[in-house]
């Protein structure tokens, strides 16, 4: 248990770690899925290719989509892409950075499936057994072309009576498996070389821009998470006040209808809320800015403002929502000028 908790905490430490963790999990699931899948070549002339290629390409597509789904950052990226500009300019570089990071992680599991399938060879043998050139193998010299085609279609099935224990089948099967493994290793080599070059050569181009984009894409992700947490906090607060308000109003309604006729024999009812609606003040004055938003329309308006007009990335200038700058902070600065440090809001 502790082991899991520690691993969990390690992976939670940053959102990149979380994404790497998900990527690894998906890769492990792919390997398990491939090894437990029961490959079943139809061994019929036209269906072989369809089955073999289908099995080589369809699960990777599904795994790719799963990888995109499981990655929270893809949603964040699309939101950042589609939001109205508002008070915060959009930087296409950040969106591209997030997109490439999401795609890289989502591509890991499909590539693992394809490589496993090629190194194992069954898919390739099934798909291309009918396309082998019979001239390469002397064993086919005595057969008519249609017989050859029938034979070749049955090559992937070892147990079929036509091809059982036939050296010709083994030769063709070997040849195709060797080709499949060669292609698999070549693709692996190519990918690794590309990854290595990308990693080495990246600092040679635009390192400062890269640092900035990495910082701000991390920021966008964090901000989204924190906003969701703040909204949850607000919703909790809202619900709490709503419920207390309801009980208080029930109590006052009962009093107003005079249901408490006589006090004899009845124990005195304690007041429901000793401090009334202000009882929450002791709760945390820091939440005052949350508490002010206190009706459904206001909440809706807050959420649509967050979407349509995100605040500018400048904590000292006024983030006021009205263009006229009704708040007292509006008079201060434009972006980027130097200010004496402690900003008092």
């Amino acid at each position: 248990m502790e082991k899991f908790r520690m691993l969990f905490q390690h992976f939670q430490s940053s959102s990149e770690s979380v994404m790497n963790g998900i990527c690894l999990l998906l890769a492990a699931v792919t390997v398990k899925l491939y090894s437990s899948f029961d490959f079943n070549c139809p061994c019929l002339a036209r269906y072989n290719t369809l089955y073999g290629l289908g099995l080589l390409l369809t699960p990777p597509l599904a795994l790719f989509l799963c990888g995109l789904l499981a990655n929270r950052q893809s949603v964040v990226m699309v939101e950042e892409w589609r939001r109205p500009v508002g008070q915060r300019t959009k930087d296409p570089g950040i969106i591209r950075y997030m997109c490439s990071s999401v795609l890289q992680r989502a591509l890991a599991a499909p590539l693992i499936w394809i490589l496993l399938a090629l190194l194992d060879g069954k898919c390739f043998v099934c798909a291309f057994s009918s396309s082998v050139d019979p001239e390469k193998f002397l064993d086919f010299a005595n057969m008519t072309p249609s017989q050859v085609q029938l034979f070749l279609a049955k090559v992937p099935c070892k147990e079929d009576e036509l091809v059982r224990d036939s050296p010709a089948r083994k030769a063709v099967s070997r040849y195709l498996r060797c080709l499949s493994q060669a292609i698999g290793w070549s693709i692996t080599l190519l990918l690794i070389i590309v990854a290595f070059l990308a990693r080495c050569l990246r600092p040679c181009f635009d390192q400062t821009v890269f640092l900035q984009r990495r910082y701000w894409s991390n920021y966008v992700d964090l901000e989204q998470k924190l906003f969701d947490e703040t909204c949850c906090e607000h919703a909790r607060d809202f619900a709490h006040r709503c419920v207390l308000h309801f009980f208080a109003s029930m109590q006052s309604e009962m009093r107003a209808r005079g249901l408490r006729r006589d006090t004899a024999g009845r124990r005195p009812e304690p007041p429901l809320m000793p401090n009334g609606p202000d009882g929450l003040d002791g709760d945390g004055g820091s939440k005052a800015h949350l508490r002010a938003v206190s009706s459904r329309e206001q909440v809706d308006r807050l959420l649509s403002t967050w979407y349509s007009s995100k605040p500018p990335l400048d904590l000292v200038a006024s983030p006021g929502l009205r263009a006229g700058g009704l708040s007292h902070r509006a008079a201060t600065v434009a972006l980027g000028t130097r200010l004496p440090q402690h900003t008092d809001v």
Partner: protein
Amino acid sequence: MDKFRMIFQFLQSNQESFMNGVCGIMALASAQMYSAFDFNCPCLPGYNAAYSAGILLAPPLVLFLLGLVMNNNVSMLAEEWKRPPGRRAKDPAVLRYMFCSMAQRALIAPVVWVAVTLLDGKCFLCAFCTAVPVTVLGNGSLAPGLPPPELARLLARVPCPDIYDGDWLLAREVAVRYLRCISQALGWSFVLLTTLLAFVVRSVRPCFTQAAFLKSKYWSHYIDIERKLFDETCTEHAKAFAKVCIQQFFEAVNHDLELGHAHGALATAPAGSAAPATTDGAEEEREKLRGITDQGTMNRLLTSWHKCKPPLQLGQEEPLMGNGWAGGRPRPPRKEVATYFSRV
């Protein structure tokens, strides 16, 4: 559990330890991969050598490059190599040290693969079965009568027991034993050679340039740790920035609601709450911001980090204005006195 945690923490402590762990795992994975891999000699004259050479050389190359790719030091090396000198001189010895240490660790898994392949013998058998001396090992009198392509085709099937049909010329077992024995001899020689080389390099190195080596090792660890700390500080800053930004957003909505609805439902919300609201918990967030409160300044900070890294000299209030970076360090100035400092 404690042991596990200790090992985990130790391995994470710096990049070199982490890479030691990763390379150990990769070496084991390499051996496991070989045993899981289904070696499949094509048993055709032209293809045998190509397939075997591929299997002997491609996976080690893949493992080597994988070992380099997984090492964060690669991009760090490239960054350190390409950065402008700024206020911190570049030391080629540090770069060489980093490269050597990375390459050494990345070589372990490929060496394991090559050794296991040679010791197992299937690859060698597949590659050289057509070169077996038939006259010595088999029916030498029949061999000259065969045309070379036919001989080659026959011998190429030696690795495949189920399709071999040349028992009249050469017993399969004999050829297999012969080639496997050579392969194992080569394999053990290879293992001996690499171990000897590693031993010599390790023991002889302190005889040369030990002082320079210690220096390079120290500064290479330093660069690694500095980069990690910078990334952590940036993340902390981003979190604080986001918190304050969202808080200000809620306050702005609050403020506009107050102004927009001067009477009505908001009469219950204490109007002056905005000021005391910022005091608890918000102050420490603002301190984490270290005075960097807008996008332009942050971008300038990141640019300056790459273009002009600070000098390796603590204990001085260095004037940063020359860089064009408008430093917003919070006062009071930190008097950090280092007992010694060294220059690179």
